[in-house]
């Protein structure tokens, strides 16, 4: 299936866009889609932090085509 991934801050600069489309096998989990996300740019880390539906997600979380997926660079608020 195809997934649109939201991309922010330094990672958005790295790929030149605030989103990217990846193609992954089903059934998918955060663990199974991570490498496809990391492959978006050599400037991304090999194991980027992923959010699903606006929450940090562990590797075992299932991913469906309707989910909102995002890749989260190191945060710097405050």
């Amino acid at each position, binding site marked *: 299936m195809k997934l649109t991934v939201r991309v922010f801050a330094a990672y958005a600069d790295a790929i030149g866009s605030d989103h990217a489309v990846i193609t992954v096998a089903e059934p998918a989990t955060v663990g199974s889609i991570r490498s496809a996300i990391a492959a978006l740019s050599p400037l991304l880390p090999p194991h*980027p932090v992923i959010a699903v539906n606006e929450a940090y997600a562990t590797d075992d979380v299932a991913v469906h085509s309707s989910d909102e997926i995002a890749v989260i660079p190191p945060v710097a608020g*405050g």
Partner: protein
Amino acid sequence: MSRSGIVDLPIDVSAIVGEVQAPGHGAIATFLGTVRGSSGKRVVTGLEYSAYVEMAEREMADIVREAAALASGAEVVAVHRVGNLVVGDSCVMIAVGHAHRGPAFDACRYVIEEIKKRVPIWKREHYADGSTEWVNAAAPQARAAGTSA
């Protein structure tokens, strides 16, 4: 009433203090984060904060709820500003009203520490020489964070 939010206008300190004042609250602790004029050896002329707004608001709301649970009876307001800021502007404010000062200080401190760890907000510093740089202060450490960050 406790609340939190991502805002794109200047932070009104008095108004937020007023929100956590109540006849039962003898103690109000606040924290205000402001844009510093230097970062390491470089002169900072401005800062640009961006956020994954929907998720940032959810994380902020979680943190405020956790703080209010830690300090039972506390009223907690936390706001973080995004957009272009100049040196001296306030980027984040936390205010906690409580009957007693100990829980008020503790809850206030908890909120700023957790914001810095978990809320998906990023900042890009603009330097006097015209260059810019994303500031990587912390890898996100959510309680449910990925196994690899």
